[in-house]
């Protein structure tokens, strides 16, 4: 596969390490009331769709950026590639 890196352009997926569902960005609040169950869901209960999926890829053999890749898991078509840091900030993550 080819991942169109937002900074570097098209790069072979072989340069990347795959982590999984981009929902891993949505780490729950550790002081939340139901933190235990929220963390449990965060870590273990994730979707595995046959179709469009947002995934985390790490450009380990490149610029060390974490990317959020929106990919069709059936056709492998890649619809969007974003810097994970931008995605995290857009979701309100900060310090």
């Amino acid at each position, binding site marked *: 596969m080819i991942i169109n890196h937002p900074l*570097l352009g098209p790069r072979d997926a072989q*340069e990347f390490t795959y982590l999984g569902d981009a929902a891993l960005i949505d780490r729950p609040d550790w002081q939340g009331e139901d933190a235990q169950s929220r963390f449990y869901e965060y870590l273990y209960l994730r979707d595995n769709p046959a179709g469009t999926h947002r995934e985390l890829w790490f450009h380990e*053999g*490149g*610029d060390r950026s974490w990317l959020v890749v929106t990919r069709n898991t059936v056709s492998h078509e890649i619809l969007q590639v974003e810097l994970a840091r931008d995605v995290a900030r857009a979701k309100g993550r900060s310090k």
Partner: protein
Amino acid sequence: MHDLIATTALGEAGPRADRFEGLSIAENPDFALVSVAARLDRQEGLSAAMKKAFGLALPDVGLSRAKGALSAFWTGPDQWMIEAPHDSHEDLAAQLGAALGENASVVEQNDGWVRFDIEGPRASDMFERLCPLDTRRMQPDAVSRTSIEHLGCFVLRRDAGEAFSVLGPRSSAGSLHHALCTAARSAL
């Protein structure tokens, strides 16, 4: 002055050089290397400090730029490597640290890397056996990190001609040298 004698990354007293038809591979131990990463929201301050102290404008994504003895290349978002001759700039990290202050995190990388300078019209015939970079169509002054035989390496195009540098992890200098020479023998 201390009395310890340096060895090259290949563990020898002097650098290694190999010649092939249309290609030379020469270890170049004379480089100081320092990683400079902008502190959060200090990119502009870093650029300005760099320009002021060394007259060097930090290059954009995927590029390198030289000014005097120093050159900089992009390595990641808000992150660069600064190169200079080692013999004259062994303390480059200290110099940069002093000049950049709180604008950047400065880390000495002098000895983290091995550098091979590759020159000759057949250079790309060797690279195509090693890495997915299209070195024939790399812009002059382009830099890219890629994997060569599982080693994360920087490949720098040094000018519009067929001059490249490969910077790879120093502990694997022998494996990288072996990979370059094997590919060169195979391709040439």
